[in-house]
């Protein structure tokens, strides 16, 4: 288990440091305000846009296709950060990862797999709490019409759907299981394809296009609440051990003050009604600061798969 109390204490000390800084900024701001007094009202109104917006990259580690909810959440964050917030959504994890590395994003909600691969560039901000823990699983699903399949081994020569090549639950875990048997997806399955979203893996398996799929367990559970007619067309064959839940990360260039503000707002969500409502929609219990140890399991699997890939002769 993770020592949450220790993290929280250090966070609190950091906060107090930041507070003194904020006070300093405020003094300067008051001086500036006095200088531009005739235009005070306009400047004040323009204040939120004066600073560049916080850019947060989103990936389909949650149900990111609910435009209304995403807008509500953006407004909530903007209100509490006292900054305008921009959400950036892209077709794949890789694009978000690249944007964050290049500094085109300040934060991103990523999968644990790309996080561990870019550990030297990224910093952990917060980890969601799912069913009271910052953990989740990967599900192996098949169409509900398939009554025979008992394990991954039964899916040899079948058509298999992955969500994203950079997803842990939707790709790496299955790849790791196969690698342990000295197999790879291309050798084990007759055909594989990526749907670029966990939800669409469920759809692909439900429609029968794929005979099996790897999906984020948290996303599947959340879909089962909102769209039971979709998940009921699939059957969970296997649940993986627990891994660290896809975390909020930032790059090394982001100002500590912004990181702290973001951490404060995310952690505070569980303590006000608007935040609780949003969390309920996300099917999450809240956010914690989390620690890197959570993602050790993913890192091990990534290393194992990576080594095997390097050992194996490259496919043309």
């Amino acid at each position: 288990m993770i020592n949450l109390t220790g993290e929280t204490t250090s966070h609190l000390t950091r906060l107090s440091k930041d507070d003194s800084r904020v006070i300093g900024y405020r003094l300067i701001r008051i001086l500036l305000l006095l200088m531009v007094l005739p235009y005070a009202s306009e400047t004040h109104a323009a204040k939120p846009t004066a600073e560049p917006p916080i850019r947060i990259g989103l990936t389909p580690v949650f149900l990111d296709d609910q435009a209304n909810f995403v807008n509500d959440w953006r407004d909530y964050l903007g209100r509490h950060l006292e900054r305008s917030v921009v959400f950036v959504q892209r077709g794949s994890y890789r694009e978000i990862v690249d944007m964050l590395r290049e500094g085109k994003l300040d934060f991103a909600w990523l999968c644990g797999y790309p996080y561990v691969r870019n550990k030297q560039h990224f910093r952990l901000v917060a980890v969601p709490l799912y069913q009271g823990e910052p953990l989740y699983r990967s599900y192996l699903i098949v169409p509900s019409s398939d009554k025979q399949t008992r394990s991954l081994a039964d899916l040899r020569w079948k058509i298999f759907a992955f969500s994203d090549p950079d997803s842990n639950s939707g790709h790496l875990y299955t790849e790791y299981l196969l690698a342990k048997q000295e197999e790879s997806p291309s050798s084990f399955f007759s055909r594989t394809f990526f749907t670029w979203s966990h939800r669409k893996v469920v759809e692909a398996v439900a429609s029968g296009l794929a005979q099996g799929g790897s999906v984020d367990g948290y996303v599947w559970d959340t879909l089962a609440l909102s769209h039971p007619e979709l998940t009921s067309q699939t059957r969970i064959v296997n649940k993986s051990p627990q891994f660290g839940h896809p975390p909020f990360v930032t790059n090394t260039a982001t100002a500590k003050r912004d990181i702290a503000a973001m951490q404060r707002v995310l952690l505070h969500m569980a303590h006000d009604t608007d935040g609780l409502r949003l969390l309920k929609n996300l099917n999450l219990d809240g956010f914690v600061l989390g620690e890197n140890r959570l993602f050790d399991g993913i890192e091990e699997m990534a290393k194992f798969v990576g080594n095997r890939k390097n050992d194996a002769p490259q496919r043309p």
Partner: protein
Amino acid sequence: MMRLKDLSLKDLSLKYKVPLRVAVLVIVTAIVLTATLIYRGIDDLRYNLIVNADKMGRVIANTLVEPMLHDDVWRSFEIINTPFRVSGLQTPDQEAGYILILNGSNNVYASTKPDRFPMLKDPATIDTRYTELLKALPDFQSTLTAIVELDKPDDLFLLIPIQTEQMRIGTLVMSYPKSPFTSRFYRLAKDAVLITLLVLAVLLPVSIYWGKKMAAPLLQLSDAMSNITPSLQEPGVIMLEESNDEIGRLGKSFKSMIAELKEKEDLQHQVIASDRLAAIGRLAAGIAHEINNPLGGMLNSISTYKRHGTQDPFTLKTFSILERGLIQIKETVAALLVEAKARSHPFERNDVEDICTLINADVRSKHVSFTHENDIIDTQALPSTLVRQVIINLLLNAIRETQEYGHVHLHIYRDRGNLVIDVSNNGSYIPPDKVAYLFEPFTTLNDSGSGSGLGLWVIYQITLQMGGLITVQSEPDETRFIVQLPLQDDRR
């Protein structure tokens, strides 16, 4: 009697033939129209379906190029699935059964029915029709759409090449079930049957009415024709609708034919009657002459004997009886042999008044009311003796033949060179079949035996000799004798 087997279709009444023909016409028209409309409707539906499907297929095929080049099965699947996600908005007639993407080697790349057409399978192993279907694939370089209807026509297939840079990377197969065609066919056929029944419901009563209307005059005509034989009817009795169409003209011709026949028949009767009268006249004159010669001798002998013979009372009595008998014979013969040569003064107004005075006794004894109109002012160029005899005979006849307390009327007037004597009474109807014998001697209408039986014979003979004309008009409540005598001065 008409046996059942003789009752063939052509023997049917027009009342049934006309509605039957109308029904047959309506049904034939409806069948021809319906067949044309159904053919057009289904052809249009097929054309629209192919045009729309081709347009949609080309859009889909173009969109598929990139995901297929990137081997993105999921996006390809999502693209071909799009039409099915909004299928609720589409008209069910034009919904594709399923869409299939075949890769370069004609195996399934993706399909909207993954259960039936799983990825990577050869479609010919799933549905044998694909062996034949794939033969219809357009040429490798062609961008044309191939439209395939297989022999067992359940489905219509559109094969659209997925091409990039003149290179085919796959084929889009769109399958359309034909059930919409059959359902459209049944819908159209059902509507047509309903409308036909509706039209028949309106037209049949109308045609039944027409049939009756057409049959009625023909039936009347045929009834009238079958009634010709015993005796000709008066043309006015035949009730036929007057019109200028064929049936109306037939009726008119029939009426005029009846009228002509009737005229001919009347003329024939007149000729027969006058021939007979002439023969009787000749016979009577011949007999009269033959009787008159010995009669004159006998009467002379009796007169001579009375003057110069013995005055034996018994003989005288006998001769006197003989003489009276012979005189009666002479009178009778004289009456038969009407002589129009008697010379007398011209007929004048006073002659009529005299006659009225003369017949007064008879008028009173029969309690008849007698009226007369005398339109004669001056003297007429006619011998008064003969005219008076005619008038007296006519009046006596009329008084005798009318009923008790009856009425007799005399009217004398001039009319275009004729003296017209018009005597009418009420009652004493003369049936038409007796008119022909009316003027023969010793003809009586009733069996009472009153009268000499020579009154009308004398009138006829006098009128005939004076070149006149007698007309008899007899109706149940009035009988009228009109004698027209041409004035001798005017004739010359």
